[in-house]
């Protein structure tokens, strides 16, 4: 088993699987076999890979294949979505304690990058107008305290240290010092330690007890291998971590350890370190890391392109309909649904009929407006939707009754639809050449 040409083999699999309706077990298993290898190559823990693959398998089998994709691509797309979801759906902020100061404890193995991250986080918070103080609680590694002090000086941030005291005492005293110095954050740098060193793990627990941190961040080297799960599990069990920081991510590591750790702790990845300089700290983007771990850049790009092409086709279709005056209420409804999904709704709403312009002020559009609009259009017959000009008074009455709206509302919708159609035709004409950029719909 030599997997030197993983990408090539994957393409092969994907090609073979082209052109089916629903994902079969065979489709899914074949594609997932490659995914599994990719994840292992990326250092995702063996057991994590196994459970992840099993989950995705169940979700994928029987799924409809989007017309633009091959079944293999569809599976990869699902894997990518699942990975992204697993990495965390939204950006995670550093918490604030209800009562200042907010204490943040940074913990981790030796050499993971705690001291540098402590300083970076100090700078990050300072840039946000906070007043952080750093505390040097690594009394073991030679010159670790000095390292933090130098970094603190560079950043013009106070660094608390007390010669001859143990780490628990230093941390405790630092909390008092923070209050005195009118700072609002305390970032405690701790010594690197092995998760199996019970004495030192106990020390961390004692520090936690003493300072009651709002955040306990596990600092992890992004290049870590299979052992990441053991490390993360031990730290989490002992301390109940609140978040992760992934360091050295500017390297060429695939970063699969992040997935392993995420899986065993459930903690969000809050920040990533991307360089040795103190400004090299960034918020975390789940989808980027998901793509990186999966490492199927080519395939993912292919999927994106295929899907973009389809969207473009649909847009072009619509464009021609508008030009030829063939736009129907059905098209409108479909556009609305899409816009709603894409979040571009507000932007395009002014072109939609039946929406009360009052509600558009401040970009606030009520869900109700759509519901009403949708209800009215859905109460029409397909023929009416395609050709609104046939809607006479009795039809209006029937539509109003069917949708539970007033006749006036139905009238307004139809008027605005006509107006919008004209407007859009104008826009389409204007946009000729620059299409689709100037077109209000994506």
């Amino acid at each position, binding site marked *: 088993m030599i997997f030197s040409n993983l990408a090539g083999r994957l393409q092969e699999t994907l090609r073979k699987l082209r052109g089916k309706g629903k994902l079969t077990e065979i489709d899914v298993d074949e594609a997932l076999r490659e995914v599994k290898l990719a994840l292992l190559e990326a250092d995702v823990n063996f057991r994590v890979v196994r459970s992840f693959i099993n989950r995705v398998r169940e979700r994928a089998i029987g799924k409809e294949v989007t017309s633009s994709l091959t079944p293999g691509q569809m599976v990869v797309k699902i894997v990518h979505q699942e990975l992204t979801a697993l990495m965390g759906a939204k950006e995670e902020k550093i918490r604030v304690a209800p009562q200042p100061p907010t204490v943040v404890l940074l913990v981790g193995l030796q*050499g993971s990058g705690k001291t540098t991250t402590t300083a970076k986080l100090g700078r990050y918070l300072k840039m946000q107008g906070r007043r952080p103080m750093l505390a040097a609680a690594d009394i073991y590694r030679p010159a670790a305290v000095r390292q933090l002090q130098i970094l603190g000086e560079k950043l013009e941030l106070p660094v608390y240290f007390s010669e001859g005291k143990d780490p628990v005492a230093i941390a405790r005293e630092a909390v008092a010092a923070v209050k005195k110095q009118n700072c609002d954050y305390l970032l405690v740098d701790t010594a690197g330690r092995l998760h199996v060193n019970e004495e030192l793990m106990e020390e961390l627990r004692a520090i936690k007890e003493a300072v009651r941190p709002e955040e306990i961040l596990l600092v992890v080297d992004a290049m870590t291998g299979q052992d990441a799960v053991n490390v993360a599990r031990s730290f989490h069990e002992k301390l109940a971590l609140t978040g992760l920081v992934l360091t050295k991510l500017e390297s060429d590591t695939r970063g699969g350890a992040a997935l392993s750790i995420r899986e065993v702790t459930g903690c969000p990845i809050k920040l990533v370190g991307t360089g040795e300089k103190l400004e090299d700290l960034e918020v975390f983007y789940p989808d980027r890391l998901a793509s990186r771990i999966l490492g199927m850049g080519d395939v993912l790009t292919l999927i994106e392109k295929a899907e973009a092409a389809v969207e473009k086709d649909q847009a072009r279709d619509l464009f021609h309909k508008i030009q030829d005056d063939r736009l129907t209420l059905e098209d409108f409804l479909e556009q609305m649904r899409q816009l709603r999904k894409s979040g571009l709704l507000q932007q395009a709403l002014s072109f939609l009929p039946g929406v009360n312009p009052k509600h558009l002020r401040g970009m606030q559009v009520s869900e109700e407006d759509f519901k009403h609009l949708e209800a009215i259009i859905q109460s029409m017959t397909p023929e009416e939707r395609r050709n609104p000009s046939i809607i006479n008074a009795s039809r209006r009455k029937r539509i109003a009754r069917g949708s539970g709206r007033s006749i006036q509302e139905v009238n307004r919708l139809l008027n605005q639809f006509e107006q919008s159609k004209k407007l859009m035709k104008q826009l389409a004409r204007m946009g000729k050449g620059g299409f689709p950029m100037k077109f209000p719909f994506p």
Partner: protein
Amino acid sequence: MLAKLKNSLARTRQRLVHQLEEALSLHSRISPELYDELEEILITTDVGLETSGRVLEELKARVKESREERPEMVREFLKEILVDLLSLPVPPAIDRPPLAILVVGVNGVGKTTSIAKLAAYYKAKGCSCLLVAADTFRAAAGEQLAAWGERLGVEIVRSREGSDPGAVVFDGLAAANARRIDVVIIDTAGRLHTKANLMAELEKVYRVCTRNLGDRNLLTLLVLDAGTGQNGLNQARVFQETVGVDGIILAKLDGTARGGIVLAVADQLRLPVVWVGTGEQPDDLRLFDAREFVTALFDET
């Protein structure tokens, strides 16, 4: 010291052996599943897909050739293969001092601490030592090395933060020459192998060394963290290309990480492991022994 290594590997070993035992007991005859499970064990120790695959192919070939039918013998074969893989020639001893050791690696792997351990080792052997602080980049890196020097009673040459590392090395080698030092150990700044400018800087340091000493008296050691995943292979490859790595120091083997990446490095780059780090104290360093390493991984006793 032997006891210490064994101790530190015991935890690592236990789970591994357990898995292996489980794998073996499930199969009274050698079956495809047995190989799958052995592969799992290799992968969970960071050996990586490619080398694991190759090792297993070879294992199958040996089993076939020997017509062996007992699963428990598979373990012996596997051990043999791994030992063979790791038994690469280590750099020869030099005939005339000084010996200069250039220690390189990515950030935080354990370079400075390993240097302290090396100094303790050579000092105990009766050699005179000098440490050169060529990490002029990281805050307090010089202080860290100086603290070790003081603790071990070993002299150190250093310069202020931000100064040219090549110049410090030049000064260090000159001082070693003047003082007739036996072993000069050079600490370099941690750097990612992907940073071209930092690798170029390292190459310059390397050239300063070779120009002053000639190739034969220079030993370049790459420190790998035992917890490192497949990226360790990239690290080794690029450092090897840049400064001609002679061998590996495998640090932090006292945790639960098994350091299987050195098998991939041995297989694909032919780089031998020379030293093993097993803790944070100066005497937590051992000369690497392939059989001992593999035995400690796979053996119960």
